[in-house]
């Protein structure tokens, strides 16, 4: 069966979507990623969609599901490289990808993940009060 490869780099999982995703492929990626997060104890997932010419509601929902499932499994997700035409279309479609963190490119995406993981690590040593108001990674 056709699959999208998932690369492991340290505690990061990297996915580059390079094909026009049919629905089954998107669902398989969702299942594979959740399994790999658990089996590799990954803390972060980066999904590069710069090759995707279309993100419809099904693919959008899959990206949202992946972000939500990763979060439950204690991993952060960032989606990078969305094409401008895709972003314009998604918003008009009515899909703002709430709950999915995005970054312009792979480099920025890695920065977001690093900062987010560092904050989580530091947060464990701070009191809840100290963290209040500094959480810049609120959902949205």
């Amino acid at each position, binding site marked *: 069966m056709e699959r999208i490869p998932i690369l492991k780099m340290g505690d990061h999982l990297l996915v580059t979507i390079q094909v026009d995703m049919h629905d089954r492929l998107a669902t398989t990626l969702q299942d594979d990623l959740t399994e790999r997060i658990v089996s590799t104890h990954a803390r972060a997932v980066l999904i590069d969609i710069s090759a995707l010419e*279309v993100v419809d509601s*099904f693919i959008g929902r899959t990206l949202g599901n992946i972000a939500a499932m990763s979060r439950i499994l204690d991993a952060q997700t960032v989606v990078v490289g969305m094409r401008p035409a895709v972003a314009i*279309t998604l918003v008009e479609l*009515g899909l703002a990808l709430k709950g999915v963190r995005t970054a312009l490119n792979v480099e920025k995406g890695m920065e977001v993940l690093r900062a987010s993981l560092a904050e989580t690590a530091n947060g464990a040593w701070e009191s809840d009060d100290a963290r209040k108001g500094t959480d810049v990674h609120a959902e949205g």
Partner: protein
Amino acid sequence: MSTLKDETLAIRSADDIVVVRQVVRAWAIELRFSLVDQTKIVTAASELARNTLDYGGGGTVRLAALLEGSRRGLRLVFEDKGPGIPDLALAMKDGYTTGGGLGLGLGGAKRLSSEFSIDSRLGEGTRVAITRWI
């Protein structure tokens, strides 16, 4: 208004949704749509093709490249012989779905098109037509 060419594609499987996207993209490029216009009509086509498959049990899409005065258009007509939609107003509402989707298909496709029409008869099927003009 004249039709430059037309073609009908079958929508019977999830793979056909990908084929519909690819053919619509090729036609939009041929009509010299901008990248954003291409992306919009391809995305709308993807939503409607999935509806035809998931709710209509499969069907067809007829593509037509149109010329009217100085403007060019791409019209897509999706038809199925499924159960039909009991409440069209409700089906058009964002967030309403009887399936497992997000309920953005019809409303989203309408927003992504210049013209939109839907006709559904219970027990007979559904026909959705969209056109994007440039």
